[in-house]
């Protein structure tokens, strides 16, 4: 039993770390703000979720597990809200460079 839980931890945490990597790669490689936002919010929250899932078997009591879940829910809430706010504002230009976005690009993004 202990071994199975440890394996679950290792698998889930590793997967989560890979999702963090994927989010970072997307942030660096994707062509415009909205696709970067997509990579970030999806992969990032999934990454944190998997890390939390992997840590659940390792904590001592139900209260600590609850705290872990609360952290994840909080990150989900703030991540999605800020993603929504940012997606609406992504077309604001930096003084350096004109934006390359078209307004319709965000239509398919939830």
């Amino acid at each position, binding site marked *: 039993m202990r071994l199975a839980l440890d394996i679950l931890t290792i698998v889930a945490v590793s997967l989560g770390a890979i999702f963090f990597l994927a989010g970072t790669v997307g942030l660096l490689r994707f062509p415009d703000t909205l696709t970067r936002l997509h990579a970030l919010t999806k992969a990032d929250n999934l990454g944190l979720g998997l890390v939390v899932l992997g840590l659940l078997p390792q904590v001592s009591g139900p209260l600590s597990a609850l705290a872990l879940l*609360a952290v994840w829910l*909080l990150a989900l*809430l*703030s991540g999605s809200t800020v993603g*929504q*706010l940012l997606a609406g504002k992504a077309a604001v230009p930096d*003084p350096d460079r004109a934006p390359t976005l078209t307004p319709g690009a965000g239509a398919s993004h939830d």
Partner: protein
Amino acid sequence: MTNALIVDAALALLVLGLALWVIATRAAYRAVVGFVAYGLLMAIIWVRLAAVDVAMTEAALGTGLTGLLLLGAAARLAPYETAEFDRRPGRGLRVLIGLLCAAVTLGLAAVVLLLPAPAPSLASLVADNLPPTGVGNPVTGVLLAHRAIDTLLESVVLLPALIGVWSVAANPAWGGRPGSLPRPPASSALTLLAQVLPPFGILVGIHLVWNGADDPGGKFQGATVLAAMWILVLIAGLREAPALRERRLRVLLVVGALVFIGIGASGIWLAGAFLAYPEGYAKPLILAIEAVLTLSIAATLGLLLAGPPAGDRPIGTTS
């Protein structure tokens, strides 16, 4: 311990890189974004330094409140920036300053490397004297029992700071509503966040204060979270900032320090010294002080962020 060392080295390098970015980048807005990221990493460093109380304060103050304050200022000052950059000192002077600053760094580094080997410490003293206070968290014990005078002075010094912020207002605006907060146009996402997050944040704030007696946490961390939630509601436009002339608000600002001073003064004849607690009553008194101080500090921090009164019109708008 190699993995731990990798974490530490990565943190130190990242923090230095971000500090370099904060100093060297051209636009203040970018520097401030870097500074917020810097604060995040500092919170992790405090955890690595086994200072969880400090990490909480840094996470709450350094990234949250300071971020809002500086981002708002950077956004408003952006138009003035182009003229700024060309007023840097000349290259030769910069190199000279750089060398002198490097000398300061080297001196401090030497101090760090040559610290006395059996480190001087008050930890055992605190550990010995913690049980009489009834408090389990040594940092809270130090803040409210052993070095209570520091904490008292600090909670008092926040008030002159607030008066200082208010004082830069134009004369007719005095006593009006603070006007420095950004007011984005109403959006459903922001409204949702401002409705969902504060109940949770208030819970966390109270938890931190209550838990602060025995575990890491305390009134500063709790008060910062409360202030942040209040400011979030104000930014989302769900509530109007209170007019600063309101009597209730003023009472709320000073009640924490007054209660602290009152209990401290009663200690003169109950326990024989200013800020001493009577035998057996230390913990309830500390908790009472913490509770009231939390409210006052939260209100003060929130109003420091909200800025000077601006009459009826937010400062940033052009009429």
